[in-house]
């Protein structure tokens, strides 16, 4: 048996057997990794606060063949700000879930780790959480190798300077100028400025992308398109989308007290 260490982000945890939990991390050293936390439900002291989603931890794993178990797990950053704002928290859920769905297990990707860690950090402070989520999703697809090149029109080779409108289709993997991105085709419509912004964002180092600001409405379109693609690609619904849609549609803040159902027994 060997014990190895890495910094990691906690994605999710579920109970296992009588006293254990299985925790899924995205780690700097090994990428997506699942590990058994022995006795995690019995002794609260041993792993206190260590398995909360969104937390950054210093993780010690025991490994033998294909089995991994948590030897130690020390909290580095709890990202408390995310909990105090349900909308930001819902976006964080989306980041974690897409990380979980898109990465194969035990495939290290330091750039993805830097991206995820940076996004969670930024999500707690940025004035526009949708912007953070959209930048994260696009850059994530680039790191995973599923985003087409945004340098030129796939058909005529025009550069971004040479056309006013662009279309990015994740389904077909095509990036085309207004003349060649057929109007009926599914995809994200981008004006010249937004296309140029994505181009610069993709060229920038991962840790420096958060200063890019998408035009109003573009972030929401991008999030919608990427989520739809992820669901299609993995044949699995993104559960966090439900809470996010609910939060983003302004249910918060309203103090409408519905005059209904108070005395209807639950089924």
């Amino acid at each position, binding site marked *: 048996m060997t014990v190895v260490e890495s910094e990691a982000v906690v994605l999710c945890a579920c109970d296992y057997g009588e006293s254990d939990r299985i925790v899924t991390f995205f780690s700097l050293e090994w990428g997506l990794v699942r590990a058994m936390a022995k006795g995690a439900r019995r002794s609260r002291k041993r792993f206190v606060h260590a398995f909360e989603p969104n937390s950054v931890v210093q993780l010690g794993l025991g490994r033998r063949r294909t089995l991994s178990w948590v030897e130690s797990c020390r*909290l580095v950053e*709890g990202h408390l700000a995310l909990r105090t704002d*349900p909308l930001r*928290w819902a976006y964080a859920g989306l980041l974690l879930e897409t990380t979980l769905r898109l990465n194969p297990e035990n495939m290290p990707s330091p750039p993805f780790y830097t991206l995820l860690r940076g996004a969670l950090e930024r999500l707690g402070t940025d004035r526009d959480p949708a912007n953070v989520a959209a930048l994260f999703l696009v850059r994530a697809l680039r790191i995973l190798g599923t985003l087409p090149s945004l340098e030129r029109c796939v058909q005529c080779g025009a550069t971004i300077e040479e056309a006013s409108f662009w279309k990015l289709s994740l389904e077909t993997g095509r990036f085309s100028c207004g003349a060649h991105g057929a109007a009926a085709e599914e995809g994200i419509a981008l004006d010249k400025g937004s296309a140029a912004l994505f181009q610069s964002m993709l060229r920038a180092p991962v840790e420096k992308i958060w200063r890019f600001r998408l035009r109003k409405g573009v972030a929401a379109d991008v999030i919608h398109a990427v989520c739809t693609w992820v669901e299609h690609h993995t044949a699995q619904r993104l559960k966090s989308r439900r809470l996010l849609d609910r939060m983003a549609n302004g249910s918060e803040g309203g103090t409408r007290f519905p005059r209904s159902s108070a005395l209807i027994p639950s089924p």
Partner: protein
Amino acid sequence: MVTKAHPPVLRELVRRLSKLPGIGEKSATRLAMFFLKAPEEVVEGLVENLVRLKRDIRTCPVCFHFTDGALCSICADPSRKTGEICVVETSADLLAIEESGAFKGRYHVLQGALAPLDGIGPDDLRIPELLSRLEQEDVREVILATNPTGEGEATAHYLAKLLEKSPVRVTRIASGIPMGGDVKYADKVTLERALQGRRSVL
């Protein structure tokens, strides 16, 4: 380990028991062997109890705690109408607070907490019912007693925001260093919370 040497009924029982929360195959086998050796009335009593549990216990239509009557004992008790509603995630939390004897008002059980990766949003919790109660009952204060976990905190903040403009006072239970605990062994999050929630001694 359950093998072919076990009679099918026993194997089936072990399989069913090991589906219970917190029960692995080892404990399930131990329980099955206990039932096998136990006097008949012990087993019959348990079976009858389980049947009655499913038949008689439902959730209280006002606070969503368990009850075997029309209302739970707390909602039915007029002396608990103090104008305070303590909001908890589960009935287990309610029972823990009741056991402490520290709260004399009524409760509202949300039946969960916001959980993005499980797809649980506000519509899946008893939030509309809480809002109706604020309209219909004479409520002065809502005490948010969801767990100090990510999910519980997010749920508390969601409710706080929802009730921002309502006339009721909204409070959150304190969290920090446990009684009998030790500052030097507390983790970062707990310490941060404990300092944020500090108050004057005099």
